């Protein structure tokens, strides 16, 4: 379980996150929504220990993000908005293996893991391709494969479809849904697109660094969306 207690985050004297308290259960599918600059990405980065709380704590299965970043990152994967900027190596299968190399996995085991991940996402045809010639959707799938290969318990998606066309958007959202339903991976989806949250069970709405709604998606109403600046 992910637990956030009394989290404050300050950046250059500005309080970006204010008194955040959250609990995300194993296998959850939670969407974090909010307008641009509301603090949702800042909150998401705390889950992968990319940012540390100024006050309060973030624990992943009782591991404090301030104390053991490596264990936290083994449990929580992070897929960024722009796939172009998150691929390290130039060949798809090698990039997928980057995280496994960092975990110190044996070469043979690594190859098996990379192959099974590629097969699972149905992207065998991309394995030997240069990442620079892939479409944005294919790059995002490669980035996701790199995270999936590390077998995380939770994956944070930071606006994963913003740069994609409708077909690729649907493809990625379907893959995310399958990961949650079939692989029981906890999904934390950060977005400002209401269309993206159709599979989410719970929704957290952030406005000016504060949580103004944290409940089942069915209870979300226009008044809250308007307050968060997300009404159409």
């Amino acid at each position, binding site marked *: 379980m992910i637990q956030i207690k009394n989290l404050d985050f300050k950046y250059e004297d500005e309080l970006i996150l204010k008194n955040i308290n959250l609990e995300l259960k194993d296998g959850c599918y939670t969407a974090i929504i909010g307008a641009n600059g509301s603090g949702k990405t800042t909150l998401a*980065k705390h889950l*992968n220990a*990319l940012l540390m709380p100024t006050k309060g704590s973030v624990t992943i299965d009782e591991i404090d993000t301030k104390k053991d*970043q*490596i264990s936290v*990152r*083994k449990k929580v*994967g*992070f897929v*960024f908005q*722009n796939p*172009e*900027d*998150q*691929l*390290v*190596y*130039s*060949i798809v*299968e*090698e990039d997928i*293996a*980057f*995280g*496994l*190399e*960092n*975990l*110190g*996995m*044996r*070469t043979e085991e*690594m*190859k098996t893991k*990379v192959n099974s991940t590629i097969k699972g996402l149905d992207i065998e045809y991309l394995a*030997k391709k*240069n*990442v*620079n010639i892939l479409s944005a959707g294919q790059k995002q799938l490669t*980035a996701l494969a*790199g*995270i999936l290969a*590390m077998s995380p318990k939770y994956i944070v998606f930071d606006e994963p479809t913003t740069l994609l066309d409708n077909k690729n958007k649907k493809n990625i959202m379907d893959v995310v849904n399958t990961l949650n339903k079939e692989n029981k991976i906890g999904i934390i989806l950060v977005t400002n697109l209401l269309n993206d949250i159709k599979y989410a069970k719970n929704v957290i709405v952030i406005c000016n660094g504060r949580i103004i709604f944290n409940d089942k998606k069915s209870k979300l109403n226009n008044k809250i969306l308007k307050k968060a600046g997300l009404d159409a």
Partner: protein
Amino acid sequence: MLKKLTFGQYAHKDSITHKLDPRIKILAVILLSATAFLLETYYKFAIFSLFVFLLIMLSKINFSSLIRNLRPFFFIFAFILMMYILFSRNELDKGIQAIWKFVLLIIIASILTFTTTITNLVTGIEKLSAPLKLIKINSRTIALLIALTIRFVPALFLYAERIKDARLARLGSLKSPKHVKLLFLPLLDRIFKSASTLSDAMLARNYTEKRISYFSAIGLKNYDYISFTVLLAFIFLVLLM
């Protein structure tokens, strides 16, 4: 033109050069580049160029890709030639040889990048620079820096092209220094943003300065030793001629 830039891009082919250990290829590039600088006569240039041509053939590299790699440098070649014609016409030979050496260097470097994946290149550089640990320089960091430079060169040109198009779409021009400045400032901004995201993405995948396992484990085989011996013999002969 920028979209077609292929510098630093690996092309998957089944060739002897592709199979060679990256350490051998890196050492070969260093030795061949140094030899290219020592060439003095057209006779040596011809023999050396023939050897490089053979390497291209063995590597199954597409000639049009090689030409595309050279195209961005045509302006520099023209500039060098112009300088010799204007200020040192009696040494025009030296100008032609300087350009020839430049072309050879680019082709030699291209053979390495066309036939070696970044992972193998990183591993090769990492292993070759391992002795630097004695003076507390981390070899993985150096290797990764080089690899990321190669990985992001095409992306850099793509960003530049997008910014240039956006400027031109609003009737901007790239003729005055002021407008060139307007191209470079957003480009720098984009580069810093990309670098920041990339470093976060690497941390998110548990990047550390110490690597203990390799996806593409490398090891020297018989044909590596034979190839390196042939290369040394060739360089020795060219320099003796």
